[in-house]
């Protein structure tokens, strides 16, 4: 399992960072990928799109994909956009272990 920990802001400016992180060999080789959003201070719709791009990439690789529950602003945007319904959300990466 690979945990990609995000902190700071996930927006137009930082989205490429996550995209390149997803292409690292160790991420590509893992059976499970968890984006850890717990330290994320802010996300906007570009940031959300990047999470779904990451999810799509994982599905191509037949990996299990999940995100951890983020702080209030992150959760609020996930619920306003109803995108939470399309994600597996866990409380901590350990929950993903078999």
């Amino acid at each position: 399992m690979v945990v990609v920990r995000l902190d700071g802001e996930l927006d137009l400016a930082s989205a490429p960072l996550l995209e390149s992180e997803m292409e690292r060999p160790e991420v590509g080789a893992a059976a499970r990928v968890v984006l850890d959003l717990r330290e994320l201070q802010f996300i906007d719709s570009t940031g959300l799109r990047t999470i779904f791009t990451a999810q799509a990439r994982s599905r191509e690789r037949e990996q299990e994909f999940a995100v951890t529950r983020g702080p209030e602003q992150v959760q609020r945007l996930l619920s306003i956009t109803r995108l939470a319904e399309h994600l597996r959300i866990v409380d901590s990466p350990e929950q993903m272990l078999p």
Partner: protein
Amino acid sequence: MSVGREVGSSGMDLLVEAGAVLATSLDLPTTMSQVARLTVPRLADLCVIDLQAQDGSITEVAVAAGDQQLARDLESLRRRFPIDPGGEHPAARVIRSGAPLLLAEMSSSLLRSFAQGSEHARLMIEHDYHSAAVAPLQARGRTLGALSVLRLADGMPYGEADLALLSELARRAGLAIDNARLFSDLRGAEQRLEAVLVNLAEAITMEDESGRTVFANQAAADLLGVSAPEVLTGAEPGATSGRFLTLDEEGTELAPQDMPGRRLFAGEHPEPMLVRGIVRATGEERWLVVRSSPVVDSATKRITHVVNVFENITVVKRAELAESFMAEASRVLASSMDYTATLARVARLAAPQIADWCAIDVLTDDDEIERVAVHHTDPDKLALLERLDREYRPRTDDPVGIAEVLRSGKPRLYADIKPDALADYARDDRHLELLRELGTTAVIVVPIVGATRAAIGTITLASGPTPRRLTRADLGLAVRLGRRAGTAVERARIYTERSRIAHILQRSLLPESLPEIPGMQVRALYSAAGELNEVGGDFYDVLDYDADRWMLVVGDVVGKGPRAAGVTALARHTLRAAAISGRSPSAMLETLHQALRRQPRGGDLCTVCLVTVRLSAGRTHLNVALAGHEPPLLIEPDGEARQLGRPGTLLGVIDPIKIAETAAELHAGQTLLMFTDGVTEAGRPDDALGSNGLRELCREAPSLSLQGLLERIERAAVERSGGYLHDDIALLALCVSVQPTAER
């Protein structure tokens, strides 16, 4: 004089003569041989002076003899086989004891006993050394050496009286030798000091109280622009400082009495001083740290001289000034998009900091040279420059100067401008007259280089009529300034162009006017982020799509720039088409979602708040559909606000989407407020307005007109953002007009 009686009259003569001879020389070898010669032949056949060096060895020797060959041989022996200071040689014994020694009769075995080797023994025996007297040479309580007199073969043996006379002679000779030695040490020290000073890289001068330079090294001569130190030491007091225009760090002229050297004589204790010197003859500029130290006469405690050390820090100082100037210029150039105003500030910075005057010209679209900024440190001369520009503006076909630099793109230095050159450059006599009046001594013209590397303008820096003289050393800084200005001008031009396009585009994306809804008021407000330099992603629209139905939309397309503008247009027109074809709000949003998903590049997304309004029997029915957007607020007559609608999926990201429709009725006195997240996120991350902040603002709604409410919200968002919106905001509001709308 007791000694006089003992030494007898011939002895007296000797001592008198000794006094006279010894006073004449301060040269040690001369003094030594004079002493030795005094004794031969009156007192001795052979006289030897042995001196002890500081390391204890007995190396210095002077010999006098009636037999010149003997004198030479003995001297040579002494050099090859010096006397052992700890040995039995009578001179060594006397030097050790400090007491005179009489060897009245010397046997060959005695001679052998103190001989410094067989050659010495042979010499002594061959020449029949017979009688000897040795006296210590003393001065200042120390024994310097020994004075030995000898009689050979059948000479009369020395007695006590001879020893007394010899001792007296030795006492005087000791003082003379000591003086000569001291003088020689002093001379040596002086020569060493002078050798050090002459070779030092630092410029050093020594001046006396009158201000006359009594010493200068070559570095000082170089620094002051003269060929040799002698030019300085031969000059009248004050003439040296006259070669320099001396300024302090701020550029105020300094008088000679301000300099540390003169201040020392005035009884002050000056700190090292940083001065800017300009060589009057050449205009060369030098930055110097001047340190002065007093030379105090130990007897009178008065300052007799002052030593000045000039440390040349021109290279360091120029680099420092260049850096600080470039930093300031860069700050000015980055401060505003109004490049004309910015360049004017740069010109004011350049003169006086790096030039006496500065002009900035650009090449216009019509291929003409246009002066955009000019400054001179002297206001009268500035007027002259302005007049020159009016009457004799440079032309693109001029062979030299600005036009040439624009053509070649290469920096030019016109150093040391001669009257002839001006005459060649001037177009007529009047032009020449004005140029002469300007008194320019040197000019640097550098290109303002744009992104394409072509010169889009020039910066002219010039010196004169002040003593400042621009040189090759100033070229580098000027070139950097030109490059930096190029970036700024280019950026400003692109910005201006982009602003203009963005403004036109923005207008095309938003409705020019809002349709009337009978019995209702509709108001919209749009405010773009920053200085309207990019097309924002927010949009709003109001459409009457059926007899009694209207569509109100507020949306946010992700991203900025041309691509977002394209998606904005797509969103507006798709929703319009969907509305006209009679679809429900959720179906309208589904249509837009599919349109976004079909976009060739993919990844375009959009949030929408869509409200349909249906008027029926005096009632206003609302249907709210949200797609990833903040729910609108329904503001009650008392200012209390609540959210309307349920979350729906963000469009363009993922299938399937779920959109809920929420029906509501808008009553008289209530207000519907639709907004984008630029409002709630204003002031993020430290102090975001937030949903709560927006609801608080809504409490002021009862006392405001509908337009007033929107403006109040916009103002709050701008204030939260520190006076500068970082994201666009779009607001759309609807309320029922109650009778005439006087109360609202």
